């Protein structure tokens, strides 16, 4: 018997809430522009609330249809929409985001009014007025939270997706936003417990370490924390769980990529050529940061006699090229065109190190289930790291790749249940499926 009491779903029922949601986000943008032009300085509280409420309300109303629909991942229309398929809207958003980064980094005076709208919050949290970085941190956290809610709605049939998203939302809000702010309020160094060298490269630079140690017990603990996380916790966790423990569960860059970037994950380049470029780039950045760090230490050990200012220049260079241009402007601004993990894939030195561990010494792999693959391509298409997952799956091979951030989306979207993220015994990771009849 059919159960006629069940609600009957219509796929486009959500259109209205998406219109309202997008309009509210546009209203927030408008308010931000008005604030930046000066109104933010005179009416900071009003504009603060307008911006925050519009973003939150817009995001949540936009997400309602995902929660109302029957659970199950639907990528309907993604390749048709100009917003997600590198169409006009995507380019518009990309230019908006890139522009925002450029202004934020190098022309913050244009944002003065907008920065002032964050004063009320900044004073409560940090006991000091806002600056460009506080504005950035607030918007960043908001984006992770709001788009995180959308993500959970979309992928809620898959508990792995829900839990890891709650986790990145938690780490972004707590460890990358509130705790550093409170530390400032308590007159302690502003420290991000969820970022480590080499992603937060300066945490192992001599200057930062000196400064932290001089600022008392908490500072010493921070240095200690940084060392433990980089040299002990990272290898152990990566051995047991793969790089995903960081990239998809903790990291703030990952958090933004997975939430704000989710609508664009399919735009990553899957070609072999892109993979070659990626390997060169990401490992060069790793060498660059390791060299910079080593030079700084050498220089400080010799009291600046060998290199003089040259090592400082080196680290400034790294900060400008990698820290700002790459991780910010390109890494986030290009989401709509190059996919959500541009920075993680091509630039992040942390991802490079974790990846080397993952590839050569880890229990993590994505297991392919026998011969069940139908080569449809959903996995490769939705892999934000541009991994051609299908190339392995259709041969019955497991996926053991340095760049895999373990987001689990390939497994979630596979219509034949072929892929599973697993931490099993290290040997046998590379074993592939052979039919008994072919052996």
């Amino acid at each position, binding site marked *: *018997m*059919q*159960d*006629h009491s*069940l*609600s*009957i*779903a*219509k*796929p*486009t029922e959500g259109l209205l809430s998406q219109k309202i949601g997008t309009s509210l986000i546009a209203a927030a943008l408008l308010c931000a522009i008005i604030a930046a032009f000066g109104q933010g300085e005179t009416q900071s509280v009003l504009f603060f609330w307008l911006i925050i409420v519009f973003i939150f309300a817009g995001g949540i109303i936009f997400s309602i249809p995902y929660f109302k629909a*029957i*659970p*199950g991942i*639907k*990528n*309907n*229309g*993604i*390749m*048709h*929409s100009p917003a997600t*398929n590198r169409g006009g809207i995507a380019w518009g958003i990309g230019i908006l985001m890139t522009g925002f980064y450029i202004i934020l980094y190098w022309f913050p005076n244009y944002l003065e009014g907008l920065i002032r709208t964050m004063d009320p919050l900044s004073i409560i949290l940090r006991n000091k007025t806002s600056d460009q970085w506080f504005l950035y941190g607030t918007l960043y956290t908001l984006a992770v939270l709001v788009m995180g809610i959308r993500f959970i709605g979309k992928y809620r*049939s*898959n*508990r*792995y997706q829900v*839990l890891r998203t709650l986790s990145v939302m938690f780490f972004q809000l707590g460890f990358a936003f509130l705790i550093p702010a409170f530390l400032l309020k308590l007159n302690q160094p502003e420290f991000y417990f969820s970022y480590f060298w080499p992603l937060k490269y300066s945490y192992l630079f001599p200057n930062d370490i000196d400064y932290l140690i001089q600022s008392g017990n908490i500072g010493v603990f921070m240095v200690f924390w940084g060392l433990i996380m980089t040299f002990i916790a990272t290898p152990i966790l990566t051995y047991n769980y793969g790089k995903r423990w960081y990239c998809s569960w903790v990291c703030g860059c990952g958090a933004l990529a997975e939430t704000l970037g989710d609508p664009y994950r399919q735009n990553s380049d899957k*070609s*072999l050529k892109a993979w070659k470029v990626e390997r060169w780039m990401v490992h060069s950045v790793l060498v660059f940061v390791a060299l910079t760090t080593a030079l700084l230490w050498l220089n400080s050990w010799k009291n600046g006699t060998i290199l003089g200012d040259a090592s400082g220049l080196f680290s400034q260079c790294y900060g400008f090229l990698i820290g700002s241009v790459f991780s910010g402007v390109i890494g986030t601004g290009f989401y709509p065109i190059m996919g959500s993990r541009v920075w993680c894939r091509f630039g992040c030195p942390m991802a490079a190190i974790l990846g080397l561990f993952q590839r050569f010494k880890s229990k993590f792999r994505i*297991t392919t*289930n*026998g*011969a*069940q693959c*139908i*080569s*449809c*391509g*959903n996995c*490769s*298409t939705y892999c934000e790291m541009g991994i051609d997952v*299908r*190339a392995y799956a*259709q041969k019955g091979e497991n996926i053991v790749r340095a760049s895999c951030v373990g987001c*689990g989306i390939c*497994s*979630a979207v596979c*219509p*034949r*249940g072929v892929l*599973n*993220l*697993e931490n099993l015994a290290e040997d046998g990771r590379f074993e592939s*499926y052979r*039919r*008994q*009849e*072919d052996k």
Partner: protein
Amino acid sequence: MNIIIIGNGITGITCARNIRKKNSDATITVISEESKHFYSRTALMYIYMGHMKYENTKPYEDWFWSKNRINLIQATVKHLNTDNKSIQLDDSRILNYDKLVLATGSIPNNFGFPGEDLNGVQALYNLQDLAKMEKNTINISSAVIIGGGLIGIEMAEMLHSRNISVTMLIRENAYWANVLPQEEAQLIGNHLHKHGITLKFNTELKEIQSIDQLSVHSVVTKQNETIDCQFLGITTGVKPNINFLKNSSIEIEKGILVNEFLETNIPDIFAAGDCAQFRFAKTGEAPIEQLWYTGKMQGETLANTICGNKTTYDRGIWFNSAKFFDLEFQTYGKVLPEITHEQESFYWAHENGKISFRANYNRSDRSIIGFNFIGIRFRQVIAEQWIREQKEIEYVIDNLKQGWFDPEFSDAHDKKIAKSFSSNPIN
């Protein structure tokens, strides 16, 4: 050795690739009419729904073919001349071969319903059909699909994603009931209903109606019910695509007749995949296999034979999988819609109506025969091993966890299944 393969589907391409792996000298040419490059037919629905673009459905990048020296020709083969070992293309070109592989796939069944040629009436098999469907479904509001099989349900999901209301006419008393046991068939039917698909069981098409004599306007069922629709999907199965061989000396029946080595009656000509028909199918095995998986296995086996290592095709332990809207389905071994006298069947379903488990076993020695899983991902190696080793049902139930393949943090249902099994009096 000059090898020509007709058909660049999974069968032809798997064969070509495997020949190249074993033989670096052979000249390999693949001729196909539908598309220049191999793409995944199984992904047709995702192109329509906007999950992927055509480009995304190509399993290999375009440089792959020249790198592996596999020549691709997009053309239709019109004639086969077995006497002088040549084929003729639609542009009149004549090509010679030393060995020829026929991997021409299927075409949709048609039953000659009056009105079948109206606009808006179509099947779904290839890219051209997909383009047609794209055109046929612009600004329409309702559709009817005949046939309750796998392609029918995919078509339903495709149309549904564009907010077109769908009615499916199904000859049996439940969805896919000629393949699935009643419980699974009903569970899936309920799920479809939740998505807003109307299923009409025990219903067949009588007539296709049109007002303007150009496009479909409504259909009439054998119960004389009229259903308005601007689109009629015919998904009543496929048959081998062998028309161009009708006047050749190749022996054909429903498909191209082959032996266990996939050899046809003519030396140096082979057939595999959807278009091949086994002369002597083993009992319980279908003579024509129309699946992605079997096409792939046949293509691989055939490559061995062509490269001099004569190999019998052995499909091994049966498996298949599908997805019905949000429900994933996997089957291993032989699970018939109705068990035989010698068999027992244990079925468990979750109260959420989206997850179920079935294990069929022999009554006498309690050895496992096969599984059906809905909403549960299960390891193929484990299922195969248990079936091959004829494990007892008790062992299987106690060790289900070993085969669990659901994503981390999902609920495992093995304990509930075990509990239900032990409390079930007939077991």
